[in-house]
């Protein structure tokens, strides 16, 4: 079995759901350093410090023949001191496990520089949250949910640009930390993720992302999220993402922004 061989940064970095992507959004790139002739993978850890909460994650993914990807992510949304104000208790945390699968369908983001056709992939993310009672108390319907998405990614090398657009069918409230479906809307809605990046060098991408989210719960509005990010390939196998994120209001606490830091090791 062959390992390695992928060009720097073309495996993407680990996004907030543990999939190959940017920071907030899931891309069509396949994780791992493998080419179409081998297998690869990536492990990662992410910390997001927000105005009134924090989020930490770790996980990993396996890339198969640059064609498919399976990922697993364990996430803790920590309410810290805010937990007491919410009546949940200090340092109350929501834990979530996300299992993801992605299949590349057609197109090529990297090599087909003579065509506009992006690389297109479809996938799903199965999310399991452990706080059933709280989710029901705030109007959430379920503690598990599945997101379905189609992502299109293109590197425009002659412009040094990386572009991505993703459509997601989801019921998730705050990425799933507040459950799935709600008293205001319990069904699926279509959400959009867009990313645009500029390749400063073969190792450094700077860009911005925008992600819309459902607004299913009556007790608190949910807003779109955005980030300004830099992804850096420290070595061929080690990469880091640093971003400024704004996730909007979360559970009545306004304007949650802060720093997103993620480290990934790929093979």
């Amino acid at each position, binding site marked *: 079995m062959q390992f390695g061989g992928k060009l720097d940064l073309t495996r993407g970095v680990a996004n907030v759901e543990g999939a190959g992507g940017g920071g907030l959004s899931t891309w069509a790139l396949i994780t791992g350093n493998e080419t179409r002739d081998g297998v690869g993978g990536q492990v990662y850890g992410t910390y997001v410090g927000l105005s009134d909460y924090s989020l930490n994650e770790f996980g990993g993914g396996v890339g198969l023949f640059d064609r498919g990807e399976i990922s697993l992510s364990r996430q803790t949304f920590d309410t810290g001191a805010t937990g007491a104000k919410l009546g949940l208790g200090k340092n109350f945390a929501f834990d979530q496990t996300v299992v993801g699968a992605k299949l590349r369908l057609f197109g090529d983001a990297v090599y087909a520089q003579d065509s506009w056709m992006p690389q297109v992939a479809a996938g799903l993310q199965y999310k399991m949250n452990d706080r059933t009672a709280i989710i029901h108390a705030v109007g959430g319907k379920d503690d598990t949910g599945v997101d379905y998405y189609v992502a299109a990614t293109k590197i425009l*090398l002659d412009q040094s640009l990386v572009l991505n657009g993703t459509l997601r069918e989801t019921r998730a409230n705050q990425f799933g930390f507040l459950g799935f479906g709600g008293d205001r809307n319990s069904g699926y809605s279509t959400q959009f993720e867009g990313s645009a990046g500029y390749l400063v060098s*073969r190792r450094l991408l700077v860009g911005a992302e925008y992600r819309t989210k459902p607004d299913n719960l009556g007790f608190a509005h949910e807003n779109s999220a955005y980030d300004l990010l830099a992804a850096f390939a420290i070595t061929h196998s080690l990469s880091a993402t640093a971003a400024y994120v704004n996730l909007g209001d979360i559970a009545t606490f306004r304007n949650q922004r802060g720093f997103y830091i993620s480290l990934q090791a790929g093979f």
Partner: protein
Amino acid sequence: MMMRTALLAAAALLIAAPAFAEEQPVKPYVQSDANAGTKPIAGDAVFKALHGQEGIGRIVDDLIASLRTDPVTADIFKASDFERLRRTLIEDFCYVSGGPCHYTGMDMKTAHQHMGLQDIHFNALVQHLEDAMNKEGVPFRDQARLLAKFAPMRTPVVDASQN
């Protein structure tokens, strides 16, 4: 003493040999710029960023040296005609980057026939080329414009090298 002098002379000849090496004959083919497999970049900004013919010469020398030592690619170049490869690669880069050159080598498919190349080889070449251009001080934006021309050659180079 005689013996030592003779040995030294022989060694000197061996060392000097590559400078006098001539290109090996190849199977006849039709020469055409179209063999480069892509239209040149409009304008000569990228050619200038590569520091013209001389810069391209340094980049190609560095690229060939890296490909010959990288364990991923070394075996593929074991029996190569480096005189010819150097000349045709310089022509190729000069022509594609918008310089005042003609490409006189074979088309990409014929040049890489039967080599059984994989993406891992292609990507190794791309990275050595990037390293060589970095050493030459070529800005990344210009590197990327040249690489955008070479990236689609994965099809005639890698895919077509299987048969």
